[in-house]
């Protein structure tokens, strides 16, 4: 018998932000996330000293998930960043840094929270309306007929993750693969509302990165023993497929709530097996070439099918059921007795393949929007890092892609966010901004702090502008004249620039909003009540 424990009273603290401890932890967190940000960001190693894996990362999702936070205020901050990342899988560090900065700055200014929250809201609405407006010069429309900009986007995301430990060549290879996988899942006959297909990521460790590849169709991993049993596949134009979601193992299905009494000598197993073999006969007479089953197929049925030159693959799992039925055009069969001919589907080709030390059964569809992305890497940590990085194409997918144009934002623009832009420079260098476009320029630390800027600077941070143009540079954080950014972006500039650094516009915009909202929430707190039970 369980005893009722009296609840302990909660712990109540007023004005949580004023305490020194909170400020200290907040600035530590800020230090951690700031140093991770950008292509030149530093890696963090997380371990608990009691054994267990060591996580080496610089991305917010892995960092914040592994970082234990005790103070409720920090908990709010980190959960809000994590929620944002799970939505857009990009821009987590940006959100975290901006939020920390806002909270810290407000404390330094010493205004009342009421005023600050109002001001923040006002500034946020100014920023969002500017970013959404046509006048905004930092957006680049994506043209799906040319892969250049998309490739730049993928590459800049990969570049900002140093923990992947990829060489430039490998980055190029992987970003091409990711882009190809993304383009493969776009259906050919596009209507007004495009439903994108699915790309399945197949892990393959201890292989060279450069061996990663993209294949149309689905790869099903099978053991070597199973592979031996599969007969050589005969050449044909198309194969008829049956996909079962019901178990073919011969166990009795649910018998209801009452009792079932079986008389002596009656063998239900035999009856069910008979039923299974009947099913097999029907499949053979319907000229089915491939039988796939989510669950287990009875060995006798497997044997029977093999003798009739039907390939049987079982235990494919629930995860691939949906893509399988999409690829093959089958309807998952839930009956043992009679199968409607309309449930069968077909595939173009079948083959077995070996990648590394794993064997796969490869189903190649006629035309479908499903592809498999084989990702290889040398070690586990780097592979995990890489795997989570292949998600960004998910952003594009989740957005619905109703427009053929995706709005992208180039990095480092927004006068209110200058400290954030400053944090992109880690090598002790200085950050400059120009008076014409408001773009971001980085300088080596040891360069002479004098005169001829165009000699020192070659390209701006995003790579859109080169230093030939006559721009008036100034240090970020120094006093400078208010400037009006050039309104319209010349299209030729976009095309001519070779290597742009790009960011997803929707993720960034949402990150900006989430950061300001979270900061407002934290600033508005008057009490913290901790339930210690």
């Amino acid at each position: 018998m369980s005893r009722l424990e009296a609840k302990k009273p909660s712990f109540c603290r007023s004005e949580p932000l004023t305490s020194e401890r909170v400020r200290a932890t907040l600035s530590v967190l800020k230090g951690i996330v700031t140093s991770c940000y950008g292509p030149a960001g530093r890696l963090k190693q997380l371990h608990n000293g009691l054994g267990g894996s060591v996580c080496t990362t610089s991305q917010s999702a892995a960092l914040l998930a592994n970082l234990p936070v005790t103070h409720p205020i920090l908990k709010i901050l980190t959960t809000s960043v994590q929620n944002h990342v799970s939505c857009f899988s990009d821009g987590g560090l940006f959100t975290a840094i901006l939020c920390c900065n806002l909270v810290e700055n407000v404390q330094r200014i010493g205004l009342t929270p009421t005023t600050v929250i109002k001001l923040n809201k006002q500034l946020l609405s100014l920023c969002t309306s500017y970013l959404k407006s046509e006048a905004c010069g930092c957006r680049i429309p994506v043209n799906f007929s040319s892969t250049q900009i998309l490739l730049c986007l993928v590459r800049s995301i990969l570049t900002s993750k140093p923990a992947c430990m990829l060489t430039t060549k490998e980055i190029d290879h992987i970003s091409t693969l990711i882009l190809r996988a993304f383009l493969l899942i776009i259906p050919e006959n596009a209507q007004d509302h495009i439903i994108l297909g699915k790309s399945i990521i197949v892990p393959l460790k201890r292989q060279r990165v450069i061996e990663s590849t993209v294949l149309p169709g689905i790869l099903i991993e099978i053991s070597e023993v199973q592979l031996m049993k599969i007969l050589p596949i005969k050449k044909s134009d198309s194969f008829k497929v049956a996909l079962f979601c019901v178990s073919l193992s011969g166990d009795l299905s649910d018998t209801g709530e009452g009792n079932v009494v079986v008389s002596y000598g009656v063998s239900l197993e035999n009856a069910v097996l008979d039923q299974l073999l009947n099913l097999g006969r029907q499949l053979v007479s319907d000229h089915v070439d491939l039988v796939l089953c989510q669950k287990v197929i009875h060995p006798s049925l497997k044997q029977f099918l093999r003798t009739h030159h039907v390939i049987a693959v079982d235990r494919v799992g629930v995860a691939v059921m949906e893509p399988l039925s999409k690829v093959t055009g089958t309807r998952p069969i839930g009956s043992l007795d009679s199968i409607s001919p309309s449930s069968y589907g077909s595939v173009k080709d079948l083959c077995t393949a070996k990648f590394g030390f794993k064997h796969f059964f490869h189903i190649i569809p006629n035309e479908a929007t499903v592809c498999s992305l084989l990702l290889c890497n040398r070690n586990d940590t780097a592979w995990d890092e890489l795997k989570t990085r292949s998600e960004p194409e998910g952003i594009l997918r989740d957005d619905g892609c109703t427009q053929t144009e995706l709005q992208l934002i180039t990095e480092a623009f927004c006068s209110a966010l200058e400290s954030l832009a400053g944090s992109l420079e880690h090598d002790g260098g200085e950050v400059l901004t120009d008076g014409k476009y408001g773009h971001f320029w980085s300088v080596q630390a040891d360069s002479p702090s004098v005169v001829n800027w165009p000699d020192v600077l070659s390209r701006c941070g995003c790579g859109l502008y080169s230093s030939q143009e006559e721009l008036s540079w100034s240090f970020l954080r120094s006093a400078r004249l208010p400037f009006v950014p050039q309104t319209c972006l010349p299209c030729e500039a976009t095309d001519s620039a070779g290597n742009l650094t790009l960011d997803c516009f929707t993720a960034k915009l949402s990150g900006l909003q989430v950061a300001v909202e979270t900061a407002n929430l934290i600033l508005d707190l008057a009490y913290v009540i901790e339930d210690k039970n």
Partner: protein
Amino acid sequence: MAAPGSVRAALQVAEVLETVVSCCLGPEGRQVLCTKPTGEVLLSRDGGRLLKALHLEHPIARMMVACVSSHIRKTGDGAKTFIIFLCHLLRELHAITDKEKDSFFSENIQTHGRHWKNCCQWKFISQALLTFQTQILDYVMDHYLSRHFLSIFSSSTKERPLCRSSLEMLLGAYFCGRVGRNNHNFVSQLMCDYFFKCTACESGCEEVLELVDDCFVELKVGVTGLPVSDSRIIAGLVLPRDFSVYCPADGDIRIVIVIETIQPPFSTFGSEFILNSEAQFRTSQFWITERTKAIMKYLQKQNVKLLLSTVKQPDLVIYCAGLNGISVVECLSSEELSLIQRVIGLAPFVLSQASSQYEPSNTAMVKFCKPFILRSKRYVHLGLISTCSFTPHCIVLCGPVQGLVEQHQDALHGAFKMLRQLFKDLDLNYVTQASDQNCTSSPLIYKNSRESNDLPEIVNGSIQRPYQDTVVKNKDELAKTQTYLKAYSNLVVPSVELETNILCSTPTVTLTATYQTDATLRCFSPNKARIMDDHEPFIESNSANSTTENTRREISYENLQVTKNARKGSILPVRDKSLEMCTSQSYCFSSVPAGCVLPVGGNFEILLHYYLLNYAKKCRQSEETMVSMIIANALLGVPKILYKSKKGNYSFPQIYIRALHALQTNQPMISNQTGLESVAGKYRLLTSVLQCLTNILTIDLVINIKRQPQEIYDQDSEEEL
């Protein structure tokens, strides 16, 4: 360990609670972060939630929290004002007792005796409070306050067309106090849009509010990780699960609801299925398959395109549904089912009907049924065609963290509760006393009541009729009370105290005594009066003996029921009174009409304060004057906190003086705030606080029991004394 219950202790507790809640009050209020041991964080400005999250230990504090939460459950608003008002009332009472303390000392009574005397004095005050609540408050509301009321309806015709701008002002003011500063405009706009989209016709407001209040959890979808500004309203119903089978369908879409598996089982519960041969097994399986197919075929013939099931259907059913072009949604919760049934009025499909050839009536039309993707999670989106005045819409609530989404959800739910209360008439009834004849009759009652102690059987028998439902419960307890009263009178208490005690409660006694109209019952009326009187000490005895909240709440609830009955009963004597001419009282019945509002910013409090002071001046009885003064002064506490941060012309004294001047010269009061609040809500709050205060005052002893809390609280805990 026992500690004397005292106003001072209660005041200390209330002051601590006041500091916590007052920081969240009003438009300038701030947020509070609550963390749970499970690691969840919750943001809140909701007073009820905060008080619960504190897990208070102090018995009086726990009692206050219990009172607040029962009030919140009914009205959905006013937890913070509750605490502040209660605190100010206690402060006023404390001030008064402090003044009178000198006289106590001069009398030089023993300490123990003084404690009892104190208790009696508080009980005396609590009786006066009760009188105030039942008589003076309603009188003042009806006679003076009602002329200031505004209405959210644009005209007072039968249809009562709702004025959109008024509703916006009302909701704006409500959300000002409930959600974060940067979101309240957005949330109140969202709520307003939602309400008007859901209301098909003007007259169906109440039905819509009732349905939304009951099923709000099913009508919202929470999404984390997106900014709050992404929240929106979606036409139709969104169910948080994916289709088991989805077959795109256009045009005529019919749906059925099933509450059992379509595939017949081998055996049902409590029966046995005997298998004698393998052939029999095969045929029965064949029959099951054929039967399932037949049912699905039948459904297809009825043009059914969507099957909603409360249970998980077997693979065979899903497969057959897919073949017949029927989409399936499984595992609906009972709440979702009841919501759908309320909206479209569809009864579940009975499987045995499928074989018969009759045209079934258990299908309904929907506009559309399609998958809906929110943040890469799949939902089922149904365009139900409503048969009631509620047009189904869903709210998608977004926020960066779960805590914020929950806060908005709670605030919206509370707002619907508040509106629901607003759309009801509020009954007021009170007695205007023409003379003080009752006082002369009170000694008689007192004497009779002594006799009635010896005749508990008769007493119980005689009250059967007027109390109908409550009497069964109270029967035993009453008997106990009788004995208790005996013990009570044997105590150290001077008998004079007891007498005054009963004397002071005469207004209540006479009120209840007169409503029994039956001629046969009339002769027992002194007894009955006694019984009504008994309830007060009875409550006291219980509150003194048990420190547990549970029993407390139950008792106060019972007490409430009794007084409610008394009110209901009082409708009858109106015609009898003229015949018998036994009383010189006149009963008034009136009501605050539905939809009455006042501008925010302490208008209600200042108005009531002013009129109560006026009333107190006219009043002859000293205790009425005192209670009215106490309450009138305490009422000002809320506006004082609201205007605390304001300077100059908008500071509290300035506003107060202006308002009083306007009232004295009969000019309209000028309010500098845009926003409205419900009069009925304020009235209910006031009565709840007074009830809570009465309970606190009647406690004389707090006893700490060192036993583990038990699952079931036994009823006779008082016997352990």
